[in-house]
């Protein structure tokens, strides 16, 4: 045995020594300007042996005698294969490509793949397209840049969450946000709501803990085939983020410093009328929230008595709403130090974002430290790891209909001097025209929400090449944070007149252990057939804990501590833990680099499903074919072509603890009045429980998404024009859903497997470089997405059901048979069979509406984003224009302002009577046209109040999303300085917007990231951002 080992040892090293007998050197330069290109990967063809070019583009590589060619590749550059032919110096010139079609991308589980081998769509976004865009939220910077992806920010509040869906909604009830993976770490992007989403503040979606400036690249894995190795949670797609600290290094120690300052202003407030003031029916009413009062200039109305009895001028305050906002600021600074070579390297980054929002008392601060490194030990073991600490502090105002700053802002009469008069008295009490409510400025001072997140995430991996064809690695990743949240409603707050402090503490952690065995073999069975086999195991644990207390009846004004409460109405504890064991395998076959087949399969076993039936298997197969390579066609026109197709299935487990029906601590009531057990009655504490409103199921099974995808990639004119087209069709079946049932059953929902949903869509990317000269280059990238979602069935006898979440009664975001996901079911106006609106003959207003009707569909018809990049010498001008076509928004804010006579349209011809459109039903069933004249007030109020179809608007928007101009100082100027690179730039965001069907910016979603979309329940309006940036490398 010993002899055998020794012999083997000799053989191995002998072979190795024999192999490394020659050295090749050279320099890699750019075809654009002849400048050296660092970081280019140089690999001996047919081996894994390679190196990268250094900062000056130079490389040095030992090769064996039998090496025939070198392969040069790098992101953004065309791949080049150079025959060695006995040379020892090989200098090459690489073409930059507008859209690199042969690049290496990071796919599932960190596997690097040549894009040509992929039988599915992925899309890569370079970090430079995300950084310095006047936007602190990574997801927002992705808007318009990736086909198949729908991103909607929720408001202009600092740190507010952002919703993202890839290829539509695939789960009735589960999380439809994609899985986020940062440097191999499964990264929580959860939104932790303390409050009912109808009334609370807007918490962050936790990807906001990552700064766009820290990102090297993002790869979006769109379909189940691309993401199957991540298992259950990848059915909504995966966003693979590589940070600057997580990438490999290439030789030089480099220090990069970024700095930017940005300003934000409130944008796209609705146009308001300035002819009529506070009141109703042409009378001045000093506590009215409407502007149906007398016209300004009406004799006798020069001055009026305010609610407080003061004589005040009766005039328009045209900017009373706009002046409520201030200019927000954002300062971002980041310092990155990186060094080392391919095998041994390190990186450290510190970054800071300090943002002050557009209303006072709001902001978002984020500070992070990241260190990481990789090392290859002498014994061949590779080690790598990163660890990041982030501290994020968010502060925001409360929102929502009624008793909040933003609930009141839509009810400010045109003659109310919102910011010009005192809003509080000497004792600090609010001065306002509406009893029981507070001046919005008072609310900003005294009703607020804080979130303080301390987050640590990191990974550690160990890898070893057992043989040149066999690698084993183990990676442990952890992501954990605490979020100390606090909502303060000081004494006098409309929603809690005696004051309330909600202290809400959250903890979340996720641990993953991944074993991966990677084997590859060339020329198996036949010459030119290469195979890669991956076997993996994943152990996953996710834990959450939430505990807190609600203190009420505060005693000391301004003392925002729960000890200030004299009554504690709620103390709570909720924790969850779930585990999953996954085993997976993937066999990739590559025949002569033109035909590729990938077969994958994964078995998951989940703690959240019933014992004995908690394991489930799902497979995928992907095929791609590169005809030009196959038929050895050389063409000046068509430079690249690939057809691809795949079929995949992904299973998904349930949330924890859905199997049983449980009891909960009893609470009764609504926002009018409520009690929480235990009750304190007559000096004793009376506990009370009630049966939970959900019925559990002991027979729960996993839900599945099955997807079919076909695509075509084409490159023309040396890839100066590239087209990437994808068609997909996914079916979601056996959905784990809390089906709404009749409340007369005693329950609200029951958990069960039901239903079917379909998403069909196309994605198109067109990339082009229309102009390229020595100094000037114009690149453009068009992304187009069109998705049709349809709920095919729910459950027998159930044609619609509410989506889990908070909703006002009568406005229910729902799934409905035959309709797209997320339609809003509410009260539709009564109509005749031919669809004419029915008018009440007594009043001239609409007849009482019909409940339970689909009144809005928030899903967009299509989305398109066009990025134009112009570079001239050191200047780069980049503009992103995007269109969100269709989709409807249910807006309390706008209907509130319209029915109250504030918006511009209500001021036009106000003194003229008008007639609501519709017909009046005669006794014999026939109809006659409505001829009943009503006042402007009746007319506009009659069109619809809060809970009606009148509150539904078209959300189509055309937008100049981003505009940036950067200037890089020429290297010649810097040669005598310590700087390697200096660039300065200006950027703007959301600079122009046109929404033909909505009086303001329809990109608002007060329910935040999640399955409920298309609701504007008195949120914070969007902002227009602009700023200047500086980047320096040493």
């Amino acid at each position, binding site marked *: 045995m010993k002899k055998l080992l020794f*012999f083997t*040892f000799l053989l191995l090293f002998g072979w190795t020594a024999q192999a490394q007998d020659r050295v090749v050197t050279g320099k890699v330069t750019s075809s654009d300007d002849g400048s050296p290109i660092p970081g280019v990967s140089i690999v001996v063809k047919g081996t894994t042996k390679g190196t990268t070019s250094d900062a000056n583009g130079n490389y040095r590589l030992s090769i064996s005698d039998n090496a025939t060619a070198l392969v040069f590749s790098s992101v953004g550059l065309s791949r080049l294969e150079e025959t060695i032919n006995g040379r020892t110096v090989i200098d090459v010139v690489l073409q930059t490509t507008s859209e690199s079609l042969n690049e290496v991308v990071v796919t599932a589980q960190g596997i690097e793949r040549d894009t040509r081998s992929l039988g599915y769509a992925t899309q890569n976004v370079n970090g430079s397209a995300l950084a310095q865009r006047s936007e602190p939220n990574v997801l927002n910077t992705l808007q318009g840049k990736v086909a198949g992806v729908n991103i909607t920010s929720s408001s202009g509040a600092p740190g507010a969450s952002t919703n993202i869906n890839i290829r539509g909604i695939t789960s009735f009830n589960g999380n439809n946000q994609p899985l986020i993976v940062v440097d191999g770490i499964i990264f929580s992007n959860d939104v932790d709501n303390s409050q009912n989403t109808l009334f609370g503040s807007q918490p962050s979606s936790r990807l906001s803990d990552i700064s766009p400036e820290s990102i090297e690249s993002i790869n979006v894995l769109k379909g189940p085939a691309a993401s199957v190795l991540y298992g259950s949670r990848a059915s909504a797609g995966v966003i693979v983020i590589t940070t600057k600290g997580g990438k490999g290094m290439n030789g030089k120690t480099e220090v990069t410093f970024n700095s930017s300052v940005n300003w934000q202003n409130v944008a796209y407030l609705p146009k308001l009328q300035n002819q009529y003031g506070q009141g*109703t*029916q042409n009378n001045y*009413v*000093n506590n009215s929230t409407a502007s149906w009062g007398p016209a300004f200039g009406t004799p006798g109305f020069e001055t009026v008595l305010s609610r407080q009895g003061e004589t005040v001028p009766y005039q328009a305050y045209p900017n009373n709403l706009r002046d409520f906002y201030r200019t927000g600021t954002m300062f971002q600074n980041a310092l990155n130090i990186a060094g080392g070579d391919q095998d041994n390297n390190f990186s450290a980054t510190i970054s800071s974002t300090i943002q002050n929002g557009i209303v006072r008392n709001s902001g978002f601060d984020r500070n992070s430290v990241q260190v990481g490194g990789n090392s290859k030990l002498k014994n061949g073991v590779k080690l790598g790891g990163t660890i990041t600490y982030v501290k994020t502090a968010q502060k925001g105002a409360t929102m929502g209909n009624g*008793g909040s700053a933003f609930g009141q802002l839509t009810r400010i009469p045109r003659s109310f001097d919102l910011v010009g008069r005192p809003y509080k008295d000497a004792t600090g009490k609010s001065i306002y025209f509406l*009893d029981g409510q507070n001046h919005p400025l008072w609310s900003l001072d005294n009703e607020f929400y804080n979130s303080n997140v301390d987050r640590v995430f990191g990974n550690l991996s160990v890898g070893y090449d057992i*043989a040149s064809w066999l690698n*084993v690695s183990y990676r442990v990743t952890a992501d954990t944070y605490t979020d100390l949240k606090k909502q303060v409603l000081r004494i006098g707050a409309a929603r809690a007149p005696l004051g309330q402090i909600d202290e809400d503490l959250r903890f979340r952690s996720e641990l993953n252990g991944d074993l991966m*065995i990677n084997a590859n073999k060339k020329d198996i069975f036949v010459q030119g057939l290469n195979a890669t086999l991956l076997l993996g*195991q994943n*152990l996953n644990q996710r834990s959450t804990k939430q505990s807190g207390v609600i203190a009420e*009846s505060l005693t000391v004004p301004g003392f925002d501590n729960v000890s200030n409460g004299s*009554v504690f*109405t709620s103390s709570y*504890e909720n924790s*969850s*833990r*779930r585990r999953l*064991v996954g*085993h997976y395998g993937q066999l990739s076959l590559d025949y002569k680099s033109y035909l590729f087949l990938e077969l994958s399969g994964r078995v998951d076993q989940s*703690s959240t499903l019933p*014992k004995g039936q908690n394991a489930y298997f799902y497979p995928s197969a992907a095929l791609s074919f590169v005809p030009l390579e196959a038929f050895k066609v050389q063409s000046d026109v068509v430079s690249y072509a690939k057809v691809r197709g795949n079929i995949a299935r992904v299973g998904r487990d349930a949330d*924890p603890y859905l*199997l049983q029906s449980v009891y909960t601590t009893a609470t*009764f*009531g609504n926002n*009018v*009045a*409520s*009690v929480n*057990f235990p*009750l*304190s*009655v*007559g000096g004793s504490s*009376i506990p*009370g*429980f*009630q*049966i939970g409103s959900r*019925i559990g199921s002991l027979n729960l099974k996993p839900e599945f998404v099955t997807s079919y995808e076909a695509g075509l990639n084409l490159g023309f004119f040396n890839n100066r024009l590239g087209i990437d087209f994808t068609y997909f069709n996914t079916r979601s079946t056996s959905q784990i859903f809390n089906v709404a*049932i*009749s*409340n*007369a059953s*005693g*329950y*609200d929902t029951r958990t069960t497997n039901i239903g079917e949903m379909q998403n069909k869509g196309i994605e198109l990317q067109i990339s082009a470089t229309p102009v390229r000269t020595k100094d000037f280059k114009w690149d453009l990238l068009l992304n187009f997405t069109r998705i049709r979602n349809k709920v095919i069935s729910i459950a027998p006898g*159930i044609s619609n059901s*509410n989506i889990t979440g908070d909703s006002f*009664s*009568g406005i*229910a975001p729902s799934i409905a048979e035959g309709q797209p996901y997320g339609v809003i079911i509410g*009260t539709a106006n009564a109509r005749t069979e031919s669809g004419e609106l029915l008018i009440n003959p*007594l009043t001239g207003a609409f007849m009482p509406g*019909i*409940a*339970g009707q689909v009144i809005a569909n928030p899903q967009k018809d299509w989305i398109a984003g066009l990025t134009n990049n112009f570079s001239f010498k050191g200047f780069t001008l980049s503009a992103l224009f995007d269109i969100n076509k269709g989709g409807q928004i249910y807006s309390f804010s706008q209907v509130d302002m319209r029915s109250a006579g504030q918006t511009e349209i209500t001021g036009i011809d106000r003194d003229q009577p008008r007639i609501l459109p519709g017909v009046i039903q005669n006794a014999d069933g026939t109809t006659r046209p409505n001829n009943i004249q009503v006042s402007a007030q009746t007319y506009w109020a009659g069109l619809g109040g809060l809970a009606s179809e009148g509150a539904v608007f078209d959300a189509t928007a055309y937008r100049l999303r981003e505009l940036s101009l950067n200037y890089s100082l020429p290297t010649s100027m810097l040669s005598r300085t310590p700087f390697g690179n200096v660039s300065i730039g200006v950027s703007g965001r959301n600079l122009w917007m046109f929404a033909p069907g909505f009086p303001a910016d329809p990109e608002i979603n007060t329910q935040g990231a999640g399955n409920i979309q298309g609701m504007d329940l008195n949120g914070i309006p969007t902002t227009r951002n602009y700023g200047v940036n500086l980047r320096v490398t040493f």
Partner: protein
Amino acid sequence: MTLFARHKKWVTGLTIACSVATLSSCSDFLDINQTPNNPTSVTPATLLPSGLVGSAFSNANDLNRFGSVIMSVTAGANGSPFTWDRYNTNGADFGNQWRFEIYGGALINYEKLIEAAQATNSNSYVGIAKIMKAYTFALTTDVWGDIPYSQALKGDENPQPGLDTQEDIYLGNSSKNVQSLFDLVKEGLADLEKTSTTNPGSDDLVYGGSVANWKRAGNTLLLKLALQISSVNPDRAKTIINEVLQGNNYITTNAQNLAVKFGGQVGSQSPIYTYTYNSSFSTDQLISTRFVNLLQGLNDPRLPLFVTRPSGQYVTIDNGFAGTPPVATSRSMFSTYVTGENGVGPVRLITNWQRAFILAEAVLRLGTAGDAQKLYEEGIKASMTSAGISDADITAYFAANPTVVTLSGSNEEKIKQIITQKYISLYGNGLEQWNDWRRTGYPTLAPHQNAVGVDGTRPVRARYIDQEIARNPNFPNNILQNVRVWWDVN
């Protein structure tokens, strides 16, 4: 082969590691799905108070805001009461009541309480739960008419229960397996006679555990239910009332009132207190000018005890008033008689004076035993006592206002007198005031200003809940608020 040999140990080691990590410990590793957050079974003593509070909320929260404003006791200044004041209602109005206070609140908890208590032979809990279940179902059918009843509260077994007619609910229908509300109460009374392994104590927020009082409450509930159907089925009503009179075990003192106690701290308070004094909805309603005028016209000594005067005057508005409402701090509101000191309540569901007025009306309408005049006086006195008026002052009032306290004229005129006094004494219980008004047409109420509704008439039912219609195809759509319920025939 040689290559493998070198790594054999590695490969074996890895295989073992995999196996250890997964197979052998898998069942334990994954066996963590028992919720640490909620119990899966609870005792009767924790279900009874939540059921009772659920019933109290059903009666006294939004439905009382509605009932009181519809009955011209309060007037709407803003929000929902403003809308209701103009007779406008819609199917979103009482969604929370239907979902979380009635079916998903009180009723399902009584159902679970019956299950838990029967399992341990805790018969007194079973009896109380059945009586309160009957009370709450009666409240629901009185408001909405036909409702899910015999098929309701069955969870998974019947996620979309069908409706029973109000007639079947009150009278029973054996061919459809519908138990009469009267029989449900009687079953509960029978359970109270059985021995019980455990008995309620402080968890009984009504009687503190007095089973004897619950028997009185059950019998008095029978009287209330019987009178409710007296116009459509006088024979059945008379039979029931006679049975109860014969048993002679009903509420006869104010201390026996079926009234749910609350606490004096935020989170424990009576809903009426919260929406009157400690909610962003507190400015929605104030006392109606009409109610104040009615009591002033009768020289009623209860007025200052019922209605607050923060500014020293009665500051009220008329029903349907469209102008600027008075400053919130000056408004006349429900007094502590209704809200209790700091919100302790109680929420009075069935009272001694209500019983006296029921029996007085039954004498005149059905010819049951008793002296209508004496019962009428008893009702007024009990109400005045409860409001805090001394016996001497009551005597003085009776002496000074003989026309008020003496029944006179035709039977119908006497009934009008009875219901008018009953209306005053039911102050704070808008639903019962509305029930009587719909059944008898008394007291005579003038139309509200700016009334719209469907046809300008006062609502005689609540519209079905939109959400329930959407979830349950058994519900008819669009039965408007001007359609009478079964027992409302005149």
